[in-house]
């Protein structure tokens, strides 16, 4: 019984930990299916966590904050999309730049807005309410994330738009001659993917932590990238991947808090587990991922 309630508690924690990774990963899946890779997820998470907090605090409404996070994702996605889709630029370089920019902006912004270089607590009035359960608070965004995952799954596997996205990644010429505006689809996919990452960022500052720090994302954007590979571009598997990671992450902390365990295993090794488990899962079960044929390649008609 004791074990069971503990388990449920870890589960509830994992449900939070899962959200930013899953949102960013599922967004990335949309973009990658259309042929655009965006490794700037970490940057998007950071920037939208920041803009989300600023707007929520200024207006006193967490919903405005979430919206601001999404709009931020939109803006950065549009920049990345413009460079990689319309200017036929290098998608990887752009993503690396976004990460660096994001890391700088949040650190700079903390000082510029609140004069605190380290951390800022988002006031309670600007934070998302939670659903209380006996095992901890569950966020509405967690539920929204589940909905989004299934919607995106439906989108990419059961709708015409999804088909268009897929074929733009697989064989953009074929899409083009079929009368599809490849650039528009890719741009749309990139932008909507980035919007999901933006939501994930705002979730971190307004819902999960209620705090803004310059290292808020703590590598979750990169974990999301790994999750995308893990998922083989299937949103449901991305959810699973995000959950596995969130679960082991929470479990590791949990276990390392338990009395006695540290006698046998140093805490540093316990904290390695989510990373090792993910790696083993990929190496053992998933293996070679198949990406769209033209992933990362700009499309040019002539």
């Amino acid at each position: 019984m004791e074990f069971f309630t503990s388990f449920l508690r870890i589960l509830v924690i994992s449900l939070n930990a899962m959200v930013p990774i899953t949102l960013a990963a599922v967004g990335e899946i949309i973009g990658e299916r259309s042929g655009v890779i965006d490794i700037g997820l970490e940057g998007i998470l950071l920037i939208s966590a920041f803009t989300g907090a600023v707007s929520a605090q200024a207006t006193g409404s967490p919903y405005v904050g979430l919206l601001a996070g999404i709009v931020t994702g939109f803006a950065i996605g549009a920049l990345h999309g413009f460079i990689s889709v319309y200017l036929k630029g290098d998608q990887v370089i752009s993503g690396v730049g976004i990460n660096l920019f994001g890391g700088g902006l949040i650190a700079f912004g903390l000082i510029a807005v609140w004069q605190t270089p380290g951390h800022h607590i988002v006031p309670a009035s600007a934070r998302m309410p939670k659903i209380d359960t006996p095992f901890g608070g569950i966020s509405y965004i967690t539920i929204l994330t589940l909905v989004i995952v299934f919607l995106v799954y439906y989108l990419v596997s059961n709708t015409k738009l999804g088909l268009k996205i897929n074929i733009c990644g697989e064989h953009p010429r074929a899409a083009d001659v079929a009368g599809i505006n490849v650039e528009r689809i890719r741009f749309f996919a990139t932008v909507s993917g980035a919007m999901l990452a933006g939501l994930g960022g705002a979730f971190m500052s307004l819902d999960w932590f209620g705090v803004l720090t310059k290292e808020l994302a703590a590598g979750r954007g990169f974990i999301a990238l790994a999750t995308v590979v893990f998922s083989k571009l299937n949103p449901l598997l991305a959810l699973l991947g995000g959950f596995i990671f969130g679960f082991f992450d929470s479990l590791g902390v949990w276990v390392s808090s338990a009395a006695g365990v540290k006698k046998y295993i140093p805490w540093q090794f316990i904290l390695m587990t989510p990373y090792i488990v993910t790696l083993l899962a990929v190496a053992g079960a998933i293996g070679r991922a198949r990406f769209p044929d033209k992933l990362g390649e700009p499309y040019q008609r002539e």
Partner: protein
Amino acid sequence: MPKTDTAEGKDTGRTLLRAEGISKGFPGVWEHLILNEIDFDVKEGEVHTLLGENGAGKTVLANILSGFYGSTAGKIYIQGEEVELNSPQDGLEHGVGMIHQEVMLAKPFTVAENVTLGTDDSDFSYPLDKVESRVYRLSQKYGLEVDPTVRVGDLSAGEQQRAEILKVLYHEPQVLILDEPTSLLTPQEAQQLFKVLRGMADEGFGIVFITHKMEEVMEVSDRVTVLKLGKVMGETDIEETDEEELTEMMLDEKIPIHLERKEFKKQSTSLSVEDIYVTGPRGNTQLNGVSLDLHEGEILGVAGVSGNGQSELIEAITGLREIDEGSLIIEGEDMTNASPREIQEKGVAHMPEKRREIGVVEPMTVGENMVLRDYRDSPFSWHSVLNRSAITNHAEEIIEEFDVIAPDIWKSETRILSGGNIQRMILGRESWRDPEIIIASHPTHGLDRRAVSHTWELFIDLRDSGSAILLVSEDLDEVISLSDRIAVMFEGNVVGIVDSDEADKSELGMIMTGA
């Protein structure tokens, strides 16, 4: 659907599409125009063939007519009205559909999914079953047999082609442009396609048929326009011309085919392929128990309609593809499934078909590509350190001897070389050692006449000095004039070996089609 006003007869058909003064240059790269003031039209109920050699500009013109490319100058009229086609979508909306030379279907998706893509249903509805039944009905109507629920990747080349046509027909075009639709088809499939095309023309479609094969022109066209190096050489009704005239228009000059060669006397076997089986990526058999012997001082031609296992045979011999069963003996040694390097070290040179894709590394320099397969050997490297001056000398020699036009050995990326120059470079690179065995795939594809005769002379010289050459080519004239013996492939097998003295084109054609 086009009007099926059969009473009007094809000669008096309305002009569906007319292009005037079309010119095309590509940004940056081209100083000359790829298309120069082209006039072209197609009428209701006719098959109008565009004939021209490789690189004549047929595809570019077709792309412009269908809205895929923009033109640098010129006007396009549809049903007499001037239109601006900025995308394939525009083309389709004006009733121009094109079946491209490369497959424009996404392999992981079904035929119906590929077709649905272009329909203008809402983004969220997914009327697959509607599309499937409509595709099915169309396929019945035009005799284009394809199961719309099958993944494109699982279809044969012929089926893919039919799926492409169905995809375009779905949009109810009036003009249908087919860019070399027969190149991947078996003769029977090609025959069937011609029947379909004729039927469609009779229904009132205007059909633009692109090819560089004379027989096809005579068989299917009502009218023919000959393109050469971006210019129209002539336009005529098919009744008013003959093969000879068309050939003359299409080519610069008649190529004199008189190649002196030593008499071939059967010497020791250099390479033998024994009952080889090769399976494709989806478990389909691609080589079906092929056997052949290649002797010292012999050119063995391999003829066949493309897609009948020639590429796979070459890849199996050069170690690029796994052999499931059977054995490969090179110079008396069993080299079955040896690595490409081991095979190369047995003295096998390889001039690959996909020259840009595997024959060179495009972003690397000309100098580096000149030793792509020899860099390990003296004098190009010494204890793993590359010897730049030796490589420079070597590259200069090849450039000199093979007339390669390359701006700079160490500064130019190989990607900026023209296709023909890349081929010359590969010829030079692969032949300079006088290799024991040469595996050559379409060695003169894309070369101009002078380079072709140079290459042919080179091959004869190599043969005379004892090299064994396996020559795969789609050009029957080339195969017949160069080879000592000719092996014909059909459906993954060698179906006949003929001595070239006794071979004639029509007979070979018969064997190639499995007759």
